[in-house]
């Protein structure tokens, strides 16, 4: 505990002093090194996993993360000056991705180092491929895939086959269970 004030001047955003009002579901997992900052409300749903070094920024508005969703290492969710960010259920925000979208629908995956701009609206079951960009204010319909340097296509497999969606959900639940065993929970630091 004594070492904690020392790095504080270096990283002011990490100061637990400005801990936002958090509403975290008991079964969610928040890693010790995860950062939750800002003054707006942060809601984290059932079984959601926030990995170490993931950043949740509630400076610009509230951040809601749905159940069974995961925010990976180094990913940033939320805005500094943009407004609310609502992340649905079964969503994956992969390593290094930046999501400032107004809302992200259920089952969507934002891949490694992809960027979703401010105010964008991602539908359900969308995929933003690694390093791709969704511009600010853009709206993606359900089942859209952003890939190959800005190309868009509709994921027919997921759209037309309900069983594939169920499988994907099942897969995500299993992944969450696996992370439960791997990521030490430090929820006590944030809850309350």
């Amino acid at each position, binding site marked *: 505990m004594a070492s904690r004030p020392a790095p504080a001047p270096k990283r002011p955003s990490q100061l637990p002093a400005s801990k936002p009002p958090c509403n975290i579901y008991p079964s969610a997992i928040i890693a010790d090194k995860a950062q939750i900052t800002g003054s707006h409300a942060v809601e984290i749903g059932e079984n959601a996993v926030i990995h170490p070094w993931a950043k949740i920024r509630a400076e610009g508005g509230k951040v809601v993360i749905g159940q069974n969703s995961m925010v990976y290492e180094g990913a940033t969710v939320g805005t500094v000056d943009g407004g609310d960010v609502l992340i649905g259920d079964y969503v994956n925000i992969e390593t290094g991705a930046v999501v400032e979208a107004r809302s992200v629908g259920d089952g969507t995956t934002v891949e490694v180092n992809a960027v979703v701009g401010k105010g964008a609206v991602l539908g359900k079951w969308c*995929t933003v*491929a*690694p390093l791709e960009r969704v511009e600010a204010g853009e709206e993606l319909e359900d089942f859209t*895939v952003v*890939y*190959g340097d800005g*190309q*868009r*296509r509709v*994921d*027919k*497999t*997921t759209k*037309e*086959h309900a*069983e*594939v969606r169920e*499988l994907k959900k099942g897969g995500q639940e299993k992944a969450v269970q696996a992370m439960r065993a791997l990521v030490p929970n430090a929820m006590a630091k944030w809850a309350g």
Partner: protein
Amino acid sequence: MAATFPYTHYACPCSNLTTPASTSISAKRTSLIPVDAPEDSTFNPHDPRANYSLSPLDRLLFCDECEEIRCQRCYGEEIIHWYCPTCLFEVPSSGVRSDGNRRSSSGEEVEEAYILQCHYCDWSSLDIGVHFSKPTKITEQLAKQRKSRTSGGSSAAEAQPLSHDETFANLATFYKEQLSESGDPQNPYSNSPYSSPNNLARIMSLYGGLSVNALKKTREKPQPMREARGEEEGMLICSFEDKATDDALLQSMQNLDWANTTTAEQRLSAPANKGARLVDALWPVATRLRTRKCRRCHFCPQYLSYPDPKLKVGNLRYKIRALALNHIPRLSIRSLQTSYPLPNPAFCLHAADLLQRQPDIQPHITRQYILTIRNPILEPIRITLATPTTTPGRVASRVTILCPSFTVGPAGDVWDEALSSSTTSMATIPSGNGGRQAAMESLTGRGADESLDRQPEAGKVWERTKNSTSVVLEIVPGALKSLPGIVPKSEKELEEDEMEEGDDVLEVPIYVRAEWEVSEEHDDAGDRKGGKRIVEADGNVKKEMAFWCVLGVGRIGEGG
């Protein structure tokens, strides 16, 4: 030849491009007129076909069985094994035909059904209604589904790829027939085991007779092959009759956007995709495998290069690699006049330096060049150089080698070179024409400062190091345009005066003959070769090698 000057290109003996020099033969230096037949002729670097037989030394291999240079055209490549470029899995060659390769399946289970899925763009084989009953033998299952689909569907759009496959099969059989027909028109031994030309070639080479190439020449000239004529021979006629299908395709193209049409790359990815105009019609193709190849001499069973089989793919180590670099004397040329340096392109730091046009050579002004011959082998070699007095081609330049016959010391390892001074290594060289001169020079201690204002002398070696010898080459470049005469030229003469591309390049063909001696126990190739083997009294085997090479000196300017 778009090389930067100066360059040296070597002619592979596989292509006999030398033209019998009818008039220039008498003009050749008498002492240098060789006895062998190919040496009676001159290699013409301006020949249109010269580009195909000349290559830089580092692209050539050397067959130590035949003791000859081997270029790309005289070695064959054999595939050692196939591997996947993504996972580096080595596919056994027996499995390549049947299984294609193992394709990673995501294995999403839908009631014991498997699909292929791309993890990047989320495309899956469900999009085209394909799923598999088991996660193995994907290629086989795919082919089965493809077959049932193309034969079941009666619409012309789907039938087209199949007819493409059939056409290809027809064409292949047609060409095979043509080959067998034209290959050996009247075979006198049709009932004997020698009937197949391959068998015959093998047997002939077994008994040390003619090479395959020589055998081909002796055979009668084959009849020309004809092309396919009808559909059963594999010719596909383009027709415009199937208008309804075209219209349907156009209609769907209008409805869908650009992203739904296939790219040329996609259409060319596999024969099955050739007719696919829309993305939905594309068919999954297994990852194309890569290969590792070995190279084998065409004239004997010797491997010229063989990648190390013990090592994994991706490792560049070779088990066998016979580079010409390690067997053939290396020739290089540079200008003697320091005021006019020919920069080495290897030292150019900026791309712009390479683009910068080198100064043109002025016609009719004698220039001197230093020709350096470097010996890569461990025995001292005797070099004899020959060149036509005037270069072949439109622009005739006069070339004189001041010292055409000399010796080059052996290449040792780096330590030998460092420890022994140049004078001690000189003693091992059988004293030749220029060798003694150079040895005397080094013994009397003539330093480098003296050589600065040294004048090149006929019959003397210019410079000598442990394993290289330099001689001086005198070139009087010819003029691009013939001098204006009083008599008006005829049309034919004017036509002849027309310059063609590359005519202004000063290229000097040089015939290099190297001789050396190997002690008998070290001679590994001699026993099998038999031909050039001359055993000396002291148990040494005399060896020789001769080849043409072309020195690219520069571009001749307009002046004069």
